[in-house]
């Protein structure tokens, strides 16, 4: 009678290598596909929660109607998901990709999984200083996927509960990941007092660099009417 070894070293090693390969492929699938499917859903949910908090709904162009809420806090602190949703972001040039995207407080990976993140050191929307916003380029709903397609003069609109804030983009650059100065006040000579900075990863599928867009504050207006810049792109 012969006895057969239940398991050989060779078999264990080959199965371990196979498992490692499958794990790497699964991680790529999770990051590049699953987080985007999940992210799209999460962004929509956060947008709905904020609109409900404001007492508002979307019109046929996907733009919020006037807020019917008299609450004094325009941001929505979500206690379940531990994220604070502050505003909605619109870029007419990227209408099919970035239209009503939630803006959340903070730029941790957890925050950025729920929308575009506002740097904690930033001033409020429309405030004096540099309003820094960060977003994913290829994962978690990829809100800034097409930031490289923007041109000088393109509009960025931020909607809070009662106010629209309009910014116009001025210049772009590509920097190293540790170049935090880009989101600080006065990042370049003659920088405007009220400005916006958008940052995301560059190139696509890499965190080797950061793509940066700077813009200046144009004006703010009441939520009782839609900014003409958005109607033009609608």
């Amino acid at each position, binding site marked *: 009678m012969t006895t057969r070894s*239940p*398991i050989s070293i060779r*078999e*264990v090693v080959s*199965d*371990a290598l196979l498992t490692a390969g499958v*794990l790497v492929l*699964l*991680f790529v699938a*999770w*990051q590049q596909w*699953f987080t985007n499917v999940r992210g799209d859903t999460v962004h929509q949910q956060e947008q709905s929660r904020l609109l409900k908090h404001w007492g508002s709904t979307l019109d046929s162009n996907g733009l919020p109607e006037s807020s019917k809420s008299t609450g004094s806090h325009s941001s929505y602190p979500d206690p379940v998901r531990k994220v604070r949703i502050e505003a909605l972001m619109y870029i007419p040039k990227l209408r099919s990709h970035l239209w009503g995207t939630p803006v959340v407080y903070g*730029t941790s*990976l957890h925050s*950025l999984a729920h929308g575009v*993140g506002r*740097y904690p050191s930033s001033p409020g929307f429309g405030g004096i200083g540099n309003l820094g916003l*960060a*977003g*994913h*380029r290829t*994962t978690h709903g990829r809100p*800034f996927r097409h930031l490289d397609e923007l041109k000088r003069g393109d509009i960025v609109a931020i909607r809070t509960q009662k106010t629209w804030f309009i910014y116009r983009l001025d210049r772009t650059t590509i*920097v190293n*990941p*540790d*170049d*935090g100065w*880009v*989101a600080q006040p006065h990042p370049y000579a003659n920088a405007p007092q009220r400005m916006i900075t958008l*940052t*995301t*990863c560059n190139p696509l599928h890499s*965190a080797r660099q*950061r793509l*940066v867009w700077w813009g200046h504050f144009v004006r703010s207006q009441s939520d009782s009417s839609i900014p003409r810049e958005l109607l033009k792109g609608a």
Partner: protein
Amino acid sequence: MYRWIFRALPGPVWARIATLAAAAAIVLWGLFAWVFPWVEPLFSQPTVP
């Protein structure tokens, strides 16, 4: 290793396949819900400090 696990499982072949498929689904859920989100910060951060 997987061959050994498959042989060690009780029942007919279809039951073993079903058991392994269920185990794989649980492992996949654990990876997607817990392990990969925990690992991700090592590879991804789209902000500047």
